[in-house]
């Protein structure tokens, strides 16, 4: 199963949701697969922070669905968030994990999921009952459809090939521009002020 194909399926299901996604090859794949979600997507470059940030958004905007697009390496960096999510149970958070079993952006040395480590099992053990693994596109679409339809915390591990789709549109912006773009979109859609204006602006 290719991550890019999963992304295209998922993108077609999203409209008013907010997305937080991880670093590496998935950035340009999501930028290309979901052009209608570019303003609504926060492109982050930090292992272990992404799902916690998505959870923080879910806490602050309980009426809105938040989608985290995390990775095996990112989730393994801070498995503690699964325990926090299990206790806090955000009903408006859906976590997808692109599990390619390697650190792809540095040449694909294996992550622990290349061994016997099972992120779905870890999540279930933490206390997240709606944790699943998709191994083909049909499974992924069914699980994603269910997760986005239900008001319950879901975590879906998508077992994907260790590859990046060729000929992608490249995202040109840096972290600051990404933050401001995302904040302006939230300000516009939530009718709130987050950055500025200042006294003489």
């Amino acid at each position, binding site marked *: 199963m290719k991550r890019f194909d999963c992304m295209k399926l998922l993108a077609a299901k999203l409209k008013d949701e907010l997305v*937080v996604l991880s670093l590496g090859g998935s950035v340009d794949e999501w930028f290309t697969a979901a052009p209608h979600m570019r303003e609504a997507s*926060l492109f*982050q*470059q*930090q292992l*272990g*922070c*992404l799902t*916690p*940030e*998505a*959870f*923080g*958004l*879910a*806490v*602050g*905007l309980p009426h809105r669905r938040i989608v985290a697009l995390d990775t095996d390496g990112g989730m393994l960096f*801070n498995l*503690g*968030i699964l*325990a*926090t999510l299990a*206790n*806090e149970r955000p009903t408006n958070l859906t976590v997808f994990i692109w599990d390619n079993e390697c650190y792809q952006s540095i040449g694909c040395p294996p992550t622990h999921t290349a061994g016997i480590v099972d992120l779905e099992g870890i999540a279930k053990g933490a206390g997240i009952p709606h944790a699943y693994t998709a191994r083909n596109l049909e499974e992924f679409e069914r699980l994603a459809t269910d997760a986005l339809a239900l008001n319950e915390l879901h975590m879906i591990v998508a077992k994907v090939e260790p590859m990046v789709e060729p000929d992608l549109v490249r995202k040109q912006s840096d*972290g*600051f521009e*990404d*933050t*401001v773009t*995302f*904040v302006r979109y*939230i*300000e516009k859609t*939530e009718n*709130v*002020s*987050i*950055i500025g204006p*200042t006294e003489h602006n």
Partner: protein
Amino acid sequence: MSITQVAVNEILQGLLEAHVSVACFLPESLMKELFPALVALEDLRAIPVTNEGEGAAICAGVWLSGKRAVLVMENSGIRSAAEALARLGIGAHIPVVMIMSYRGDLGEPNWWAIPHGITMEPVLNALRIPYRIIRQVDEIRTAIAEAYVTAYASLNHVALIMASDVISY
């Protein structure tokens, strides 16, 4: 020894006056009376976390939503949160306001807490995080208000460090 009830009340009042609605925390001993008080506060959601970096990232997400959060921890937490704070603050300009206890200050009787005092200010400075060491209870509310003003104007983190006589060893 720990924090006085007056100081706990001032912190709670300061957070509410600053319109803070979420507090992420990893409990520690010097402010131990603060944590159940945060949990009991009706107008604030208290979220226990597994490590300080996770707490920083959750607070970052709350800020992105247009709400205000605080990360409460021991000063050793600045070390474990350093990776998240560097990427969130210097990399993405997403601010996190922190309240931490000053372990390892002069008068610290525990050998294991000495590294916290030695490393706190160098780590804060390395991360380019402005901070204020608060030694008097009547400084607390103003410091909290000013921390949010500076953090959100600069899009950078700010740390408030509760020291003796706000806390005691």
